[in-house]
């Protein structure tokens, strides 16, 4: 029994240690973020950041858009089948609009990006560690955090909220498709209803979440990449760990953020 408690305690400390390490990583990366800014920073870092924005954001638009349409349609169908019984089909619009902007949009985007870019980030950095590229960066008097992490962080901080907006739009549009086929609702009226049901707070809270998720995905990816020890097979393991841990942490963070917004909001 004591052994069990010991193990639980040790594991808890390990997890806390990991999150603590992430926060330190965040601090280091944020301090290096200044070098990635245009005009005032280093123009090579800014260029690298733009490349990251394209890789993390623009290239993910088709995938995120399609996923969002599917989810929007699913949500509308599931909601519709229940709400129809109460004759409250118009509430499907609220369900989709509020559900997406507050919750599903940021979460879906974060999960897609953690699978797509979180893995890529950790694989790239882990490969650089294994092939001694990180060592050579240090020896060439570069700061690996500034050189490798900061552009990815800036790229993700800008790209992920933008993707979240794309995701929201696609999801809500899919809701209209459902409404059109079930109740012949026109697009104009649907958009009007959507705008009616949304308040600015819903959109902003969703975007704040997506910024936090972007930071989590990049930092976990980088941390897993940098902590690689051993040969090429360790790269694969770090990639898996990056996806699993960042998805997990995104969902945990989502709960905390939703709780904060829930308790600070008007009821």
């Amino acid at each position: 029994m004591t052994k069990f408690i010991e193990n639980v305690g040790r594991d808890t400390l390990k997890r806390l240690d990991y999150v603590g390490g992430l926060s330190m990583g965040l601090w280091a990366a944020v301090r290096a973020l200044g070098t990635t800014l245009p005009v005032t920073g280093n123009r090579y870092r800014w260029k690298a950041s733009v490349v990251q924005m394209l890789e993390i954001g623009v290239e993910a638009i088709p995938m995120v858009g399609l996923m969002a349409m599917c989810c929007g349609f699913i949500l509308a169908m599931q909601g519709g089948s229940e709400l129809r019984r109460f004759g409250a089909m118009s509430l499907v619009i609220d369900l989709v609009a509020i559900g997406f902007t507050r919750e599903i949009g940021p979460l879906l985007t974060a999960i897609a990006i953690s699978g797509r870019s979180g893995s890529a980030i950790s694989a790239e950095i882990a490969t650089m560690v294994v092939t001694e590229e990180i060592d050579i960066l240090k020896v060439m008097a570069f700061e690996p955090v500034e050189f490798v992490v900061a552009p990815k962080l800036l790229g993700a901080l800008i790209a992920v909220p933008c993707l979240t907006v794309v995701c929201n739009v696609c999801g809500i549009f899919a809701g209209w498709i459902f409404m059109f086929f079930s109740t012949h609702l026109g697009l104009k009226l649907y958009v009007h209803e959507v705008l009616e049901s949304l308040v600015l707070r819903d959109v902003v809270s969703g975007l704040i979440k997506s910024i936090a998720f972007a930071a989590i995905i990049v930092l976990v990816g980088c941390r897993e990449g940098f902590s690689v020890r051993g040969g090429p097979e360790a790269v694969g393991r770090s990639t898996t760990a990056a996806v699993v841990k960042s998805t997990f942490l995104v969902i945990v963070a989502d709960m905390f953020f939703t709780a904060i917004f829930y308790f600070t909001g008007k009821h």
Partner: protein
Amino acid sequence: MPIISVRNLVVEYGGRRVLDGLNLDVEPGETMVLLGGSGAGKTTLLRNLLGLERPQSGSVVVKGVDITCCSPTELKRVRRSIGVSFQSAALFNSLTVEDNVALALREHTSLAPSIIELDVWMKLAAVGLADCGKLYPQELSGGMRKRASVARALALDPEILVFDEPSAGLDPIVAAELDELILLLKEAFQMTVVVVTHELPSAFRIADRIAMLYRGSFLAVGRKEEIRVSQDPHIRQFLDRVPDIVKPAHLVESFFEKYLSSPEVAP
């Protein structure tokens, strides 16, 4: 005054002592070869010379700065005067050979692009890769990659040039060419050269002095002629390529004897 001075350097990994109180002086303009078998601690010593690891105790003074306890800014300043070519070449795979060489110049100097281009071309010509600037590292052979990494190490006109296993994984002809290149560069640029290797012909070809490393301490440090005629049994064993006195056949025999006398076989 020595340009690199190591005093009582102790490095331990998990309680196992890898370097045991090393003392070494490298004079400006000489070629020092760190010779030793696998696991003798060569790479660990090299990583400590470059400030990539912190030792348990002792000091590494490069150009008057103790890099084991100096500030990150000072460490960067010292590192700018060191050029390094790693065993795996460690070229940045996402950049062309030209950009690999130009990286440090672009980031650490304010030279005009045309001057940088000229300088890069000169460095590439010095290592015999003048036509390969536009190629990517993956498109080069092993020997060419090593040369490219030498060109990159030369980029900032360093005072100290460090090679980790320059001839590892290369055929004898290419390895010999690389030795000649090191001699030529040293002659042309008047640099201090530190080479870590276990290849005897290469070591005796390029060295002024040799430091013989054995299980974490120096057996002998001296001019190559002195090392060649040394009567120390471990040095002789290394130079004469005598295997350790363990006969594999005997090992197999004793294994079977033990197996046959074990209770599961002898009923």
